[in-house]
């Protein structure tokens, strides 16, 4: 018996990254910014998107791709809020979307008739951080019921995100959650992270959120340096909510 060595020297993410580059090219050619919403399960991504579709549906042509391990529940909820296509990807056990799934989902989307694309990733703060989907930016959503130290416990996700939404701020009077500490933890991991403080349930902070999305959808360049609301401004504006 002999043992032979097969040289590989292949980046583990190379294949996905190639597909993601293709997605990014398609989106750029059509001038469509794409936001990949990532979070732990239960942070409120779907309700935030429902409210977003309601508020911006008459001004922006928005498409949505949702990822779930099982069921189309999120896609069904979102489809009830828009006449436009909501593409459901059931990952059958995988803890994240990958670029091939997004590329396939986009085949059914008329990008020339789209202003903004949302990708609602599988609820998981680990795996989706490693997978580029060709998006313009990742937006990490976390909620005040989750603990302020999420950013340092899951640093890669917060490092890979350009924006953060701190959701469920209507619950702040009822939970031990210090917004300043949470923001400080996040900035320790990613000093450039821009924050939105929202309650998808009560509507608090949604004006800033939708203004940001609208400005991004109308921005000539898809890969600008940030949204209309700086993190400090956003945090100050919503403090004590």
């Amino acid at each position, binding site marked *: 018996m002999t*043992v032979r*060595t097969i040289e*590989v*020297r292949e980046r583990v*993410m190379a294949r996905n990254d190639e597909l993601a580059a293709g997605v990014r090219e398609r989106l750029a050619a059509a001038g469509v910014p794409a936001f990949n919403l990532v979070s732990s399960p239960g942070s409120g991504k779907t309700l935030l998107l429902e409210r977003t579709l309601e508020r911006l549906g008459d001004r922006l042509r928005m498409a949505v791709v949702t990822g779930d391990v099982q069921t189309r529940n999120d896609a069904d909820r979102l489809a009830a809020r828009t006449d436009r296509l909501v593409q459901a990807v059931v990952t059958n056990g995988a803890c994240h979307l*990958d670029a091939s799934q997004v590329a396939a989902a986009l085949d059914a989307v008329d990008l020339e008739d789209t202003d903004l694309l949302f990708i609602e990733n599988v609820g998981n703060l680990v795996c989706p*951080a490693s997978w580029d989907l060709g998006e313009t930016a990742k937006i990490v959503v976390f909620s005040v019921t989750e603990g302020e130290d999420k950013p340092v416990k899951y*640093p890669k996700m917060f490092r*890979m995100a350009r924006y953060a939404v701190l959701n469920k701020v209507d619950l702040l009077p009822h939970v031990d959650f210090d917004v300043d500490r949470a923001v400080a933890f996040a900035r320790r991991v990613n000093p450039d992270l821009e924050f939105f403080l929202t309650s998808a349930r009560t509507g608090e902070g949604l004006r800033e959120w939708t203004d940001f999305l609208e400005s991004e959808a109308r921005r000539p360049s898809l890969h600008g340096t940030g949204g209309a609301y700086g993190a400090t401004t956003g945090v100050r504006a919503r403090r004590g909510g």
Partner: protein
Amino acid sequence: MSLALEVCRIAEEHVGTEGLGDVRTVVLEVGDDAGVEVSNLEFCLEALLSSPPFGAARPVIEPATGDVFRVKYLEVET
């Protein structure tokens, strides 16, 4: 787990499905800034590489600097 599955896919690409039972070692380089939890990855790889279609392969993870994360080479019994 998804990263471990991707490593297995790369191994399969290089030896073919039939050859997976002969793989003995999968050597990876993982950088300290790769964002990979090495012990988790190792755990998942050990589970996958010791189950069909693999035979009794084991992962070897070589630490590196930076964000490198790649399959370096495979050792295959012939």
